[in-house]
């Protein structure tokens, strides 16, 4: 398909769904609050709306359709279909969050039990499931850090947060939003966070260390205890971004390394679907000292009834409406229950095995390397570099990725800035088979071969995608960018 835009399919007078109408009188609206002309929404019959979106869906991939190992750091794993059935069930989907607690004991129990599972998995003392996603959980943790220091009268003094370059940018960005200055540690020559830089950075102004481990390079920081100790000695808190927890489930825990706070992305490690970019779900784990600051409400259990506790005077308050992205909490709960301790460890070990297997395959390809920590293993992902290939052929990593789309798959480079030149980040997780990994490596090998032997094929890709090469320039120019059809009509449309 090359499906047109919805707005081009309009047929005046058609409609997609009937709506209850009423004989009751419609009150007149106050002056200035009555809409004067109907919104220019398209008009289509139901089948035509459906067909449009079904065709668009076929112009998309996803974990279920392709060998989705190329979105490193994203932990693209299988989201079991059975877990979806629980959340489309009316006993979840049709619950109002303000219903009397007696009518929602089941969902409260699921939240409570999930907290319990994540407490054990992280070793922390309490876990809040309110944040809407990973970055929201990072923000919630930073907000708790701020409240903690404020409760000790150190809010003014501690105005710096330390993070590392290979931690997710949201660690830096959330700290900034919360009012902190951000100090970013660069990797040392082995790719580990530079401990000397940390020593130089910590001090009485340190509010917290925000750190991912293993980092987005797939490298585990073996001096993590010392990092935590240094931050603690300076009076700072330590907050563990566990976005990359998939390879270490049951192997090591936030508590074991001394962290005060941590967060998980339930849509990564705990299998809830990525949904084109959310809804996701985040979980914040904290040690006893931070419990008073957790977002409100918490779910409590008195041995017979579950209830929501909103009376939390020191709480940072609400992070989002109501109690979190409940459907994803249910899915994550079901997933963990289908795994158990042994299963989680099997997940971790298989993900790590898959990653190291894929790495061995990839490193056989001409022009690619895995910078840092030469000869050492990675945990569940690896950041590669096409620097050599680029030097040899002039082809960039992004171009390799675009050409991979012609083979029905794709990959992601890395966050900016590109510390690793011409980056590519792969994370095979436990969901893909050996044959999948072989096939994926073979695709990369073929594109690399093309880059050396028929570079024009790569340079002019894609050739078998829905669309052809984009003219990106217009996206940064206010005169031509078009975020909506309205804007497009105005700026670029030939009376469309």
């Amino acid at each position, binding site marked *: 398909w090359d499906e047109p835009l*919805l*707005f081009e399919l309009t047929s005046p007078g*058609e*409609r*997609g*769904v009937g709506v209850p109408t009423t004989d*009751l009188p419609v009150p*007149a*609206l106050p002056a*200035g*609050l009555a809409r*004067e002309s*109907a*919104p220019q*929404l398209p008009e*289509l019959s139901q089948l035509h*709306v459906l067909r449009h*979106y079904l065709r*668009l869906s076929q112009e*998309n*991939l996803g974990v279920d359709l392709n060998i989705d190992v190329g979105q490193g750091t994203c932990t693209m*794993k299988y989201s079991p279909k*059975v877990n979806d059935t629980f959340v*489309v*069930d009316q*006993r979840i989907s049709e619950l*109002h*969050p303000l*219903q009397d607690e007696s*009518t929602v004991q*089941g969902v409260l*129990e699921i939240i409570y039990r999930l907290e319990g599972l994540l407490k*054990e998995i992280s070793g922390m003392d309490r876990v809040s499931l309110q944040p*809407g*996603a990973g970055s929201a959980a990072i923000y919630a943790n930073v907000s708790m850090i701020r409240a903690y220091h404020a409760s000790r009268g150190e809010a003014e003094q501690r105005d710096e947060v330390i993070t590392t370059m290979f931690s997710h*940018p949201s660690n*830096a960005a959330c700290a900034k939003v919360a009012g902190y200055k*951000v100090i970013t540690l660069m990797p040392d020559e082995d790719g580990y966070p530079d401990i000397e830089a940390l020593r130089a950075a910590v001090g009485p102004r340190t509010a917290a260390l925000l750190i991912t481990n293993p980092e987005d390079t797939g490298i585990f920081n*073996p001096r993590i205890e010392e990092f935590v100790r240094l931050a603690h000695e300076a009076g700072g808190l330590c907050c563990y971004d566990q976005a990359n927890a998939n390879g270490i489930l*049951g192997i090591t825990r936030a508590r*074991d390394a001394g962290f005060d706070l941590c967060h998980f992305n339930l*849509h990564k490690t705990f299998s809830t679907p*990525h949904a*084109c970019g*959310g*809804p996701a779900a985040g979980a914040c784990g904290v040690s006893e000292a931070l419990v008073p600051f957790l977002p409100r409400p918490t779910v409590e259990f008195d041995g017979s009834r579950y209830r929501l506790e909103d009376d939390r005077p020191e709480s940072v308050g609400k992070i989002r*409406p109501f109690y979190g992205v409940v459907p994803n909490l249910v899915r994550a709960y079901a997933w963990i229950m289908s795994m158990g301790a*042994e*299963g989680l460890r099997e997940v971790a070990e298989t993900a790590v095995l*898959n990653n190291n*297997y894929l790495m061995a395959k990839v490193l056989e390809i001409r022009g690619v390397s895995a910078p840092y920590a030469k000869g050492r293993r990675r945990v569940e992902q690896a950041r590669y570099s096409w620097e050599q290939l680029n030097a040899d052929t002039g082809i960039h990593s992004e171009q390799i990725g675009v050409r991979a789309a012609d083979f029905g798959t*794709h990959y992601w480079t890395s966050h900016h800035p590109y510390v690793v030149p011409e980056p590519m980040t792969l994370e095979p997780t436990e969901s*893909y088979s*050996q044959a999948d990994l072989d096939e994926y490596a073979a695709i990369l090998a073929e594109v690399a071969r093309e880059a050396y032997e028929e570079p024009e094929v790569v340079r002019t890709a894609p050739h078998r*995608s829905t669309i052809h090469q*984009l003219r*990106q320039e217009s996206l940064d120019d*206010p005169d031509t960018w078009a975020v909506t*059809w309205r*804007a497009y009509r105005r700026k670029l449309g030939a009376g469309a």
Partner: protein
Amino acid sequence: MAHPYIPNSVPAVRERMLKAVGAASVEEFYADIPESIRLRRPLDLPAPLRSEAELVRHLDGLLARNTPGALSFLGAGCYQHHVPAVVDEVATRSEFLTAYAGEPYEDHGRFQALWEYQSLMGELLELDVVNVPTYDGFQATGTALRMAGRVTGRRTLLIVGPVDPDKLSKIADYVRPDHDVVLVDAAAVADLDLSADVAAVYCETPNYHGILDASVPALAARAHAAGALLVAGCNPISLGVVAPPSAYGADIVCGDIQPLGIRMSFGGGNAGFIATRDDPRLVSEFPSRLFGVIPTTVEGEYGFGDVDYERTSFAVREEGKEWVGTAAALHGIMAGVYLALMGPQGMREIGETILANTAYAQRRLAEIPGVEAPSAAAGQVSFADFLVRFTGSLTAAEVNTRLLALGIHGGKVLSATDALYCVTEIHTREDIDRLAQALEEITA
């Protein structure tokens, strides 16, 4: 025994792969993890439910302790509307549900569907710029206010109440380092001297109490005169009949799209929108991704990409605007499907039905001795949510307990006397009459 979710858990395969990479065991891959932090015991978790049948039975037992489907008059930020089956059909497509960020080529469909969502919201809001959804309306409001702060360089945020106290809690936490929040009544704004430090005036239509406040349209002029922006919240499902805030001069419009075809899910159905005019000064302050339509090398073909990517934390970490991450994209696609199904006619009808039901419900309840509808009594028009006051011997909470015994969820309790009730297009006249009869009994 291999786990169905882990193909390479087959022992023979694991051995083969270990051999291929020259490792004796998976322990080698963990060489960097010091012994001192290794967990040398199994996690203490319940025994796994290894068969899908057992898992389903376990979850079914838990879900059986939830009771949906009673006649409910709860709203207050989470709304029960009919969700067309086509919305669910699209939302559950594997291709959408299990994809992630992707790239414009192999995931063209997702880019187009989200750009179309932006476009449909643009038509509804009469604004040219709409973001890829953020988590929820609370976040959207917090960000909209911070955007106004960055544009104006000012500190004070004037919040025109009533506002959901939970939302206020979120705003307060979110803007704390950079802004002071001042809460005022709509009525009080007229008397207020808008100082030079006001970054934004924030108002909602309908507001927390469901009221379509007649004084709101005048706020824009007052805010603009003081060099402040008008940030306006609205319920997008009202916009088939209610004027979009852009019509009365709002600079930034924000809110939650849950009413547009997303199920309540115990409060898990949110997604936030932020919209502005196509003014680079405003556009450059969005933290969210903004997809734009662009040409390709083939004439007449459309592609999509990120507008002004350098704004974002993806591009420049803490130097970006707030942050961007996984949020609620699929809810955006769902809202897009909803609006495509509804069209202008559906949006007008649903708006009218809700207005009519809200008015009828207030009229009908106010007939009951000991029950008042204060907004209606004050001549105010409400949309979906409306205030109910119990002046008899029972508190609003006690009324709820008794309603529940009759199979009815009463409104959100605001105080001893007041509750926030809600009706939508799914309520029939008979439903409202049933509530009224129940209240007559209870308060008699």
